């Protein structure tokens, strides 16, 4: 069942998926596009978690499952582990990746030409558009994490925080 895919293919597929959903299918409804992308990620995460947990023993509690996501799951997907895991012991976890692979090729400078942005004069608006465009790309990994965790029996809500690119934090809130 293990095969390899070229990384540039995966990158192109993800970029195209985000741009089709945001610009063609749900052109003026970014919230709907975001929900659809997240739903795709949910199904993918569900399937991947089933596949990657096959060889290993089951989990005894939530923390074990989160650690699995941080180590084995992340290394299967991105060839590296999560760099930092923080928790408040009340059901919130923050997974920080210091160089998120899928954002590694996105330009951070809002004033430079980027495929997703149109030329704009005022700097704050351009910055907002850049942040929005980048955040669209994060719904898919958020969905993957949510799908993986809910397959392991942990219903949760996952959001992403990109205050410092290329580092990216995923905040997982477990629903009581």
């Amino acid at each position, binding site marked *: *069942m293990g095969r390899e895919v070229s990384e540039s293919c995966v990158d192109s597929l993800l970029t195209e998926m985000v741009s089709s959903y945001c610009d063609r299918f749900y052109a003026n409804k970014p919230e709907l596009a975001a929900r659809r992308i997240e739903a795709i990620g949910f*199904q993918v995460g*569900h*399937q991947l*978690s*089933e*596949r990657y*947990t*096959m060889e*290993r*023993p*089951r*989990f*005894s509690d939530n923390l074990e499952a989160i650690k699995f996501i941080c180590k084995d799951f992340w290394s299967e997907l991105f060839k590296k582990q999560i760099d930092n895991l923080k928790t408040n012991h009340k059901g919130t976890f923050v997974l920080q990746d210091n160089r998120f692979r899928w954002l590694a090729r996105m330009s951070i400078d809002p004033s430079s030409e980027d495929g997703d942005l149109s030329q704009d004069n005022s700097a704050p608006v351009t910055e907002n558009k850049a942040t929005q465009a980048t955040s669209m790309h994060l719904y898919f990994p958020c969905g993957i994490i949510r799908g993986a965790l809910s*397959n*392991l*029996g942990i219903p949760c809500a996952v959001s992403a925080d990109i205050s410092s690119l290329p580092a990216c934090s995923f905040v997982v809130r477990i629903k009581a």
Partner: protein
Amino acid sequence: MATTACFIIVSRNDIPIYETELGSAAKREDAAQLHQFILHAALDVVQDLAWTTSAMFLKAIDRFNDLVVSVYVTAGHTRFMLLHDSRSDDGIKSFFQEVHELYIKTLLNPLYLPGSRITSSHFDTKVRGLGRKYL
């Protein structure tokens, strides 16, 4: 050598998503219902036992006359339950592992809704083949 075996897959929400009779013995009309009844009754035992261990393969967890129930639990809490007359543990463990692979392949099908019944005849044929091979 005639063997009796009944195999069901129960999803996380306690919904049976696949059932089949695998044994090579002559099938009686009431036997099928009895087998299902025994397996459903064993679900409670599985529920308690599943949380005590992190292994996937729980060996014989329940007996009824000369029939034994063995269970294999996945990380997603999907239970594969097999009712059989005492066979070798190794054969049953290999059977479960191969069915687990088949199940993952079914899950990878984007048109399959997780938690719904598995109706693919291909899956059915494969499971029966594995039953003949390992049981």
